[in-house]
Structure formats: structure tokens, C-alpha cells
């Protein structure tokens, strides 16, 4: 598919969907709503923010308290997430597992179309210096996408479909030159990622390592790493009201914030910065692999870029 054909394709998508894609913003690429298709950044650069707000909004209504805990309505907007890269799909695959029984997530997910992008082949994740695990050769079989675009050196795109929904859309728009890839599960045929298991073992034994004390002195517990992280999904449930609404809603939680673990009476298991940061790493490198056999960190490096005091996740992992 040529670029102008792709633009035509997106234009017709736009009739039905709110389009979200990476856009150039100064030196960064930032995921936001797209009105002008020409503004989309096709460079394949890692966006500064993650896609998670599409799938797990920073705040979402769960119940209407004025109506006796009637569940919030299922009217979710149709959203097309265009330009998701391989590691972002890895994060989405994790979300699909974590929220498999969550009615709000699933409603939203159902109305979302995912269109992937990889520049110069699926190996392009290597340029992000993914450190936490090895990705398989046949990576497209292990991520859940609707449509995937692989940008070739000449600038044209190879098109894949990964779901019936993706197929239908391509067929409707009379795009015939595509290959279908069947999702073969999140875990590769060779079993859980070896690098992930190695890191898990190291992390489990790392409690007394000097690194946690060092981070205690550096980290200011601002929580920015959690906010940009595509796999951080902690949440709080909160009742709130304003003039018109009275709702129980779910909002992003943050394990760096002070009341995250605080219970009535004042006891707080995570009472130091080092305990908080340990908790964060433990979730990604032990708890998630323990529960789902896939990594809790996709190696996108967003946390390192956003950290105001320069904590680099790959450097930390070398010292555990």
C-alpha cells in the first residue's frame, strides 16, 4: 500500500472512528487525537506518552449514584488507535489479560480499532533498546491487533490483518493485498520468555541490594514513570459529586503517592521511597510474570525519558 492509499484508508476510517495517532510535537512524538491526517508521525519513533488512556481512561464513571448504583451506560466512542508499535501491543496484550473480566474495559476495547505500525520490519523494536526481554521472530502472531502496517524501505506499506474486524474493514475498503495472521497467544511456542524468568529470579532475591537504598536518596516519588508507563494499571475507586453528577468512578492510581497503601488508623506498608520503588519493580518483574507468564515491562523506555532525576530502568536492572 502506498502512502496516499493509506491516507485514503484513514480518511474513510475517520468517518466512523475518532482517530488517535502519534503526532510530531517539537522533538517528541505525542499520541493525541488527529483531525488532519497529514499530521500523523509515520517515523516509528517511540511516542512520549502511552496509549493506555484509550483503553483505561484516567477517570471513568462506573456507577450512577443518583440511580441506585446503576452501571454507567455502555456508550463508548468508536476509537481507532493508529500507529501502535510492537511494544505497545505487548502492553495491550497484558491489559487484555488483566482486565479480562472487567465490563468497562471490554466495552471500550470492543469499540476500539487497533492499527499497528512498524518501520523497516518488526525488528524495529530493537532501536528502542528493549532490555527486558527478547522478542520472537514471529512476533505478530503473539500480539493482538486488528490491522498492522509494516513500512518498507521504499516508503510503501505491507498490510496484515489480525482479527475478523480488521479483515472486514480492509475488505470493505477494497484493500485486497494483505496477509492474515492468526493470534497464537501471548506466550511464544518456546514457553515463557527466558530473559523474563531470569530477571524474575534476580528481582526476587534483590531485597537487600544496595540499589534500593541509593534510589531512596535519588527518587522524588513524583510518579511520572507510572503515568507514562503503558503497563502501569493501578487504580483507585472513588465516589465524587458535582452539581449534576454523582458517580462512583475509577481513576488511575499511583504507587508512588503517599496514600496508596495507607489504611485507616494510619498504618502504611509502603512508608519509604525505597519501598515504593521496590514495589513498582516487583510488580513489573515478579508479580506480573508470576500471574500471567508475560513480562510486566515491555521495555519501551518511556519511564527513563520522563524521569526528572534521571533514573534509568535498564541501569537499575543491572544492579539488582
Amino acid at each position, binding site marked *: 500500500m502506498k502512502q496516499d492509499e493509506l491516507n485514503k484508508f484513514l480518511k474513510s476510517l475517520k468517518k466512523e472512528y475518532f482517530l488517535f495517532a502519534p503526532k510530531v510535537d517539537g522533538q517528541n512524538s505525542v499520541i493525541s487525537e488527529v483531525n488532519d491526517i497529514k499530521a500523523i508521525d509515520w517515523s516509528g519513533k517511540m511516542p512520549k506518552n502511552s496509549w493506555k488512556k484509550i483503553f483505561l481512561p484516567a477517570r471513568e464513571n*462506573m*456507577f450512577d*449514584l443518583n440511580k*441506585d*448504583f446503576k*452501571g454507567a451506560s455502555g456508550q463508548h466512542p468508536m476509537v481507532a488507535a493508529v500507529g501502535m508499535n510492537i511494544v505497545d501491543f505487548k502492553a495491550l496484550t497484558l491489559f487484555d489479560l*488483566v*482486565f479480562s*473480566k*472487567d*465490563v468497562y474495559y*471490554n466495552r471500550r476495547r470492543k469499540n476500539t480499532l487497533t492499527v499497528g505500525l512498524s518501520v523497516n520490519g518488526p525488528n524495529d523494536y530493537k532501536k528502542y533498546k528493549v532490555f527486558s526481554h527478547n522478542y520472537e521472530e514471529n512476533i505478530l502472531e503473539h500480539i493482538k491487533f486488528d490491522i498492522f502496517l509494516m513500512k518498507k524501505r521504499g516508503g510503501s506499506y505491507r498490510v496484515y490483518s489480525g482479527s475478523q474486524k480488521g479483515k472486514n474493514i480492509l475488505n470493505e475498503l477494497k484493500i485486497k493485498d494483505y496477509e492474515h495472521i492468526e493470534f497464537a497467544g501471548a506466550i511464544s511456542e518456546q514457553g515463557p520468555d527466558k530473559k523474563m524468568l531470569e530477571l524474575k529470579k534476580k528481582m526476587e532475591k534483590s*531485597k537487600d541490594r544496595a540499589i534500593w537504598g541509593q534510589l531512596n536518596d535519588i527518587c522524588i516519588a513524583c510518579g511520572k514513570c507510572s503515568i507514562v508507563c503503558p503497563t502501569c*494499571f*493501578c*487504580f*483507585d*475507586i*472513588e*465516589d465524587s*459529586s458535582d452539581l449534576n453528577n*454523582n458517580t*462512583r468512578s475509577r481513576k488511575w*492510581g499511583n*504507587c508512588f503517592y503517599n*496514600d*496508596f*497503601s*495507607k*489504611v*485507616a*488508623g494510619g*498504618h502504611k*506498608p509502603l512508608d519509604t521511597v525505597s519501598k515504593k520503588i521496590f*514495589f513498582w519493580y*516487583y*510488580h513489573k518483574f*515478579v*508479580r506480573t510474570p*508470576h*500471574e500471567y507468564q508475560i513480562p510486566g515491562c515491555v521495555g519501551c523506555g518511556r519511564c527513563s525519558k520522563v524521569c526528572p532525576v534521571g533514573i534509568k530502568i535498564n541501569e537499575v536492572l543491572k544492579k539488582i
Partner: protein
Amino acid sequence: MINIYQPQKVKVISVVKESVDTRLLRLSFVDRKTQKSFSYLPGQFMQIGLSNWGECPISICSSPSNSEKFFELSVRDVGNLTHKLNSLKKGDEVYVRGPYGNGFDTGLFKNQELLLIGGGCGFIPLRPLIKDVISDKLKVKSLKIFYGCLNEDTLLFKKELAGWNRKSELSTILEKPTKKWAGEKGMVTDLFKTRKVSPDSVVVMVGPPIMYRFVIKELKKKKIKDKNIYLSLENRMYCGVGVCQHCAIGPYYVCKDGPVFCYRDIKKYM
């Protein structure tokens, strides 16, 4: 798809003032079918909430044998929501979800020398176990209960304690009693000085984290094995189903894998 966060309406059947800051609420689902099919295990908990006040996890303290008619929660006034819950009256309506958590595996206590240790309002989740032993639903070799509390005002289940003492060896100790108190004075750990505790005992303890630290020391002195020590943890939580991460401890979730843990499994994360 079922909404796992959907609260159900329950009616307050009765309220008993258990102590100066704790009310025992007897609750029954407004939907009768829900109540009829309701069942739980000792040690499990409910998320109880009020519109605009949020939810909080509270241990069920009734015996499961009446589960098709009602269940009971003892709520201590320690925060905004629990304060509100303490002002509930008969006939009021509240919202619950649950039961959540693993509860006690009572099979492990069968024919054992069972020692229950409760500190403060940590004593609440032990009540269903005690009730089941007293009513012979749970057969044990012997039952010892250590109950430590601040003072007479905060002592729970006062009317029931005497009855329990007939079928078990109940020791109550108060940290700061009034002069009228004829019983023992001190911390719950002081009871280990005067009571015989067999090294083969199976121990269940519930109380604040600081209590665990000191009680475990005493249990080790009595040569009780880690695998025979069980405890129930209280962490902040929202979802109740192991997703929101607030209650995570090591690789586990208090809401899903707990709140009851075997000390052997959890000690390195405490």
C-alpha cells in the same frame, strides 16, 4: 457480562453496640434469592459501602451456618465511611459486594490443638471460627483463645465471652484497664508467660502488624513451626479481585490470595 464491581443492596436487621467504637451489624440482602444462595467461609470479607462514601473491606464475623438468612459485620469507627456505618439504624440500607478472599481452610484445624490470638479489632474475624468450634461444627482437640485489647471500653463480644470460656480456654488481657478490671493486665504476648502452649499447636492470629512481630517471637520460643502459623492481613484495597494493586504483598494479593496466609509463605514479604 457480569459487572464484578456491582454492589448489592442489603438491609440492616439489627445493630448491637459492641464497644465504644464498634457496632455489630446484622445484614440481609434485599433480594431474597441472593441471600438464599449466599455462602462464605470464616475469614472471608465483604466490601461494604454507601453511596457517596465509597467502600471498605470488613471481615465477616458471623458463623457461615446462618448464611442463607443473614451475615454480620463488626465495623470499627476509624475513618469517614466506618464512622458513617456506625450510625446505621435498623431498617437502613447499605451496599455490599463479596464475599472476597480465601478465608480459613478449617480442614487444617481439624483435631488440632488450636490457638487463636486476636489483638484489638483483629479479634473480629476469629469469631466465626470460635462459633464453629463451640457448636461442634469444627472439631478440634482443644481450643485456646488469647484476646488482647486496650481497655474495657473497646472489648468486643462481651456477652459471648463467658459462653465461649465454657468450651475453650479463653484468656483476655487488657493493656490499660480501669481499676475495676479484675482480670489480667498487659500485652497479649504476656499470656505466653503463664499459659502452656504445645509446640504442636496450630495458631491463627489476627491483629495489627506490630502485634504479629511480637507474637511470632513468642511462638518461636514455644517451638511452633512456621507452617502451623496462620495470619490474616489488612491492606488498603479497592477492587477486591486482585487487579487494582493496592493490597499487593510480594507476589500475592491480600484480597485474592489472602487475607489468610500461612506464615511460612508470607514471612519473607512482611
